[in-house]
């Protein structure tokens, strides 16, 4: 932003308070002044929203302009001279503040905002000091809950409209609005319609007074006893930057940090309030070892010994291939690397999967050309072949929504049901579950006339193809798993078809779990090794360091669960994974846990799955450990520790290292810094990305892997430039927040950097092509009596975070079967009726609802909601799940 452009007409010269500087034409005076260190007071203006000029606090004097224009609605102009501190301006500020305080109750001592309140601060800095108003103030009922998460105190409101504008402009959920007139103007929800936005917590963060407060934080702490650290949210894989705040060693609040490439200061409510799970009383705080039917508390050494003995016995008796690892997508990169090294480098098993068959094959995620969120928001067109972003990656939804609404990006949606993005999409192609490949083939075929494919009409396909263009130039594909009830391989195959037809298209993975991308990068998937290389391609590179490696590719999650159910996998290590609730096919998951002779669970809570384990090792949660995490773009950012873990809980990488030692191996690190140093030395996509590089100020938004050395720009810089840039940087002392111990490890790294500046000898990174997804069995022909299941997800589900967050747990909806009204009519059903739903697995009784967003022939049931649901119905051995829906009577 501070770059000076050379041609004159690109900037204008303005003078504010005697300081002359260049500003971009169209930039607002308030923003330009702030960039140059002149703070103009404001309440309603927010840099991420459109200006309205409602609060009148930013009035300034501009030479040649009559009156006092607001700085937040006035764009800079050539030669403009602005004064922000003249007596006239001061008088106006005094007046505005005195007016605002007329009706503002002075209950600052009981207000959650007191101490960090812009109204307080600006009254001290710019206010009149005394009020002449002695009459009774306006009164409203004190706080009213406008949702489960947000309380509204209308007495404190100063009508800046930040919240209503946020809800309308940014979130697209205009559920709050001004009502009444004059001094009775108030923000309210519509009758019987609470503020159930997934983004409601942001209004609390941007409220310049204490009118909106968060119920989970209400009276928990006061600003001056908060201690904070910047970190990255790991609720989903968007990787929003946050401030993690604690009081008395308890996490009490999370605030969004404005990260330009990622979250623009916004957070979703699940991310914002999910910290409550960390503080939940039900955490596993000590290791547990099964004695008979019970899990008994044990010491760490007993538990390690029991776990190691169980794993070693299986290895010795059945071979390493009989050991499998599931999960690991919730930790840090260091945790994931440690587990990958334990599984592949010590035990030599490749049956490792950080996803539970609810994502996409690792090769597809790692091997397709990657786009960043910014790339997607600036693309010519976005093809969305993935989940409901609003439900699974809410802040990515906000970013894309903004790109559509303000940037005019064309979104083509391709999915089995309409989503939160549908109303912003240029066109939505609803395909029959399991037939994404056919649609992708047709879409990229360029044929005219376009034939029907996968349940999508030819005309619709032609219109979509027209928007996306022919060669995929400027197209970003947001790629995820649209429905857990259809095989991820078909989606990956569809992506491969698109990539083959449109070589210029780039892909932004839309996977869900916190650090699933980091876990994939660190090799927690079958057939890959850390740093985005294939098992065979990386064999030589890694065997020098790791010693042993698996002989051949192992099983993915579906394979592991299937093999465990049949007794071919004898030992199962669950890394925070709860297959009973998260694996698409619950029946199979139950059989797998029963079939595996020995189960070790590394978990934070006793879940349905970890209750079945023989050894439970308690792991540290988010906020209790430091390290790095990787978001959907491949952006590596730091996560930091804020509180100490309860009981004797340990970080995953420590558990992995201790287990390795008892299994006769040595992971070779003794701190998170040492783990990262090894990653930055070994993992081909991360070579050179040392703690030192990550700690630099210019990298505070993280560094996107694959790391290609220093110096702008990525992809284009020739090697000489990168070397030159590196040489320049070495001479400078750059600010570094490197973890203790990092510098020496960084020093160790340098030789490998110097030996290998352009990557000679390093194994090539993975690529993904048509056919790499493995066998994609065609779905069976549609049975006229059956409805095909679509299982998307809801933001508030039955997952560990939501279930253990007091304020979120109640928000998970109860499962309802949604179908097209046409299909319901056909069955003689209406919304609210209860029906018997039968799949090849089981029969459930559920309530139905009509939904025109579900195509005819399909039926939608969200995955992983409390109680019985989609997981009971899904048959994981089939590419799709067909249901019979019958009336109950």
């Amino acid at each position: 932003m501070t770059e000076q452009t050379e041609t004159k007409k690109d900037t204008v010269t303005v003078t504010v308070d005697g300081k002359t500087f260049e500003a971009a034409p169209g930039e607002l005076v308030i923003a330009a002044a702030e960039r140059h260190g002149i703070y103009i007071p404001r309440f309603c203006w927010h840099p991420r929203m459109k200006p309205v000029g409602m609060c009148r606090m930013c009035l300034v004097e501009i030479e040649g302009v009559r009156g006092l224009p607001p700085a937040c609605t006035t764009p800079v102009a050539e030669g403009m001279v602005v004064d922000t501190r003249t007596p006239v301006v001061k008088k106006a500020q005094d007046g505005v503040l005195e007016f605002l305080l007329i009706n503002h109750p002075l209950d600052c001592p009981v207000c959650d905002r007191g101490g960090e309140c812009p109204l307080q601060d600006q009254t001290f800095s710019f206010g009149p000091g005394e009020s002449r108003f002695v009459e009774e103030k306006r009164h409203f009922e004190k706080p009213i809950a406008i949702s489960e998460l947000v309380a509204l105190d209308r007495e404190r409101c100063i009508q800046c409209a930040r919240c209503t504008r946020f809800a309308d402009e940014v979130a697209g959920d205009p559920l709050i609005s001004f009502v009444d007139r004059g001094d009775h103007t108030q923000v309210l929800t519509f009758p019987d319609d609470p503020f159930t936005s997934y983004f409601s917590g942001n209004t609390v963060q941007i409220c310049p007074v204490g009118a909106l407060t968060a119920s989970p934080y209400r009276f928990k702490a006061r600003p001056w006893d908060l201690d904070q650290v910047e970190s990255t949210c790991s609720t989903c894989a968007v990787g929003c930057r946050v401030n993690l705040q604690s009081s008395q060693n308890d996490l009490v609040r999370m605030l969004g940090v404005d990260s330009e490439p990622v979250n623009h200061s916004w957070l979703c409510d699940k991310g914002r309030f999910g910290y409550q799970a960390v503080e939940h009383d039900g955490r596993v705080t000590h290791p547990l070892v099964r004695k008979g039917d019970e899990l008994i508390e044990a010491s760490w050494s007993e538990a390690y010994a029991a776990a190691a003995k169980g794993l070693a016995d299986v290895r010795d008796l059945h071979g390493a291939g009989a050991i499998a690892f599931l999960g690991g997508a919730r930790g840090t990169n260091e945790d994931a690397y440690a587990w990958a090294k334990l599984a592949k480098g010590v035990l030599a098993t490749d049956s490792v999967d950080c996803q539970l068959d609810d994502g996409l094959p690792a090769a597809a995620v790692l091997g397709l050309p990657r786009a960043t969120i910014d790339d997607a928001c600036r693309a010519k067109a976005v093809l969305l072949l993935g989940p409901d972003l609003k439900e699974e990656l809410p802040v990515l939804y906000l970013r894309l929504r903004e790109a559509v609404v303000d940037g005019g990006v064309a979104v083509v949606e391709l999915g089995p049901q309409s989503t939160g993005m549908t109303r912003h999409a240029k066109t939505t192609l609803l395909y029959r579950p399991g037939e994404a490949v056919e649609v992708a083939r047709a879409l990229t075929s360029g044929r005219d006339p376009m034939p029907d494919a996968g349940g999508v009409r030819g005309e619709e396909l032609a219109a979509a193809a027209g928007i996306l263009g022919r060669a995929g130039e400027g197209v970003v594909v947001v790629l995820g798993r649209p429905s857990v009830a259809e095989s991820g391989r078909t989606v990956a195959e569809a992506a491969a078809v698109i990539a083959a037809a449109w070589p210029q298209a780039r892909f932004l993975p839309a996977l869900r779990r916190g650090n699933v991308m980091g876990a994939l990068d660190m090799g927690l998937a079958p057939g890959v090794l850390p740093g985005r290389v294939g098992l065979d391609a990386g064999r030589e590179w890694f065997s020098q360091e790791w010693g042993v490696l698996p002989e051949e590719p192992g099983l993915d999650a579906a394979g592991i669960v299937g093999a465990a159910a049949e007794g071919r996998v004898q030992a199962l290590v669950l890394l925070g994974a709860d297959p009973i609730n998260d694996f698409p096919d619950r029946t199979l998951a139950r059989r797998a846990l029963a079939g595996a002779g020995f189960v070790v669970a590394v978990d934070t809570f006793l879940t349905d799955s970890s209750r079945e384990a023989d050894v439970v090792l308690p792991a540290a949660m988010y906020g209790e450990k430091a390290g790095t995490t990787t978001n959907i773009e491949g952006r590596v950012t730091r996560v930091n520790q804020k509180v100490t873990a309860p009981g004797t809980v340990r970080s995953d990488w420590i558990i992995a290292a201790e287990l390795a030692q008892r299994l006769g191996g040595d992971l070779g690190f003794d701190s998170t810094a040492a783990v990262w140093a090894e990653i930055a030395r070994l993992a081909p996509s991360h070579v050179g990305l040392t703690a030192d590089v990550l700690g630099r100020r210019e990298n505070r938004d993280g560094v996107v892997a694959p790391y290609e050395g220093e110096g702008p720009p990525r992809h284009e810089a020739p090697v000489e430039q990168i070397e030159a840039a590196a040489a320049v940087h070495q001479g400078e002392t750059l600010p570094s927040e490197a973890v203790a111990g990092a510098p020496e490890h960084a020093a160790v790294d340098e030789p490998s950097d110097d030996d290998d500046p352009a990557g000679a000898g390093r194994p090539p990174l993975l690529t993904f092509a048509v056919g790499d997804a493995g066998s994609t069995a065609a779905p069976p022909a549609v049975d006229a009596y059956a409805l095909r299941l679509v299982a998307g997800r809801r933001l508030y589900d039955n997952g560990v975070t939501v279930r253990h967050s007091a304020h979120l747990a109640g928000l998970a909806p109860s499962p309802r079967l949604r179908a097209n009204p046409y299909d319901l009519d056909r069955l003689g059903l209406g919304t609210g009726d209860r029906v018997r739903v039968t799949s090849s697995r089981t029969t459930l009784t559920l309530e139905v609802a009509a939904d025109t967003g579900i195509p005819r022939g399909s039926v939608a049931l969200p995955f992983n909601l409390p109680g019985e649901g989609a997981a009971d119905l899904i048959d994981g051995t089939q590419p799709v799940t067909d249901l019979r829906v019958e009336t109950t009577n």
Partner: protein
Amino acid sequence: MGYFEGFRVTFEQLFRPRVTIQYPEEKRPKALRFHGRHVLNKYEDGMEKCIGCELCAGVCPARCIHVRGLDNPPDAPVSPGERYGFVYEINYLRCIHCDLCVEACPTEAITESKLFEFSFSNRQDAIYTKDELLVADDGQPKHLPWEDWREGEDLHTSAWVRATAPNGDADYEGRVAWSAELGYGVRPPEAGQLGDDDAGAPIDDITVEQVAEGGHH
């Protein structure tokens, strides 16, 4: 003679009035604004004045105060308003009796008594909880078994507040800017801030002489 010269000071002292007293059997009256053990006050209707705002904890230079607020139960509110002090603890091993908490308190909930004579045999006992700090039903500080209270020491728990107000500005002398207290009602202001003894009402029952005599300035 030279021998007795050395005793001159001693003999002179023999005939001067004695300044030492037989502490602890005998005690000096304490200064009017002596900073002793804290009390948490109540309003006349018995509601607690503390609203759990933590300003005392925030200002405390010794970090000895721990406060946690909670929503007032709607059917049986503990304090007026939305929040009350759910936890209130002072660690007297840390407290330096600087009275900044008293100055910071927006509701005059926390003030100090004259009591400094209390001791503990373990660290846990040094942490006074809300139960111990809160005044009794008659508005008087609770006399805890290990504390050595003397006659009248529990009467002047809000002397500092009543000296001047607001914010210690002597111009406000004589103006009542505080709320009523359980057991006392609205206490009168303290006189003499501007060097003019008639400017305000006299302090209730400690005489000016007593103050002059007992004050170690």
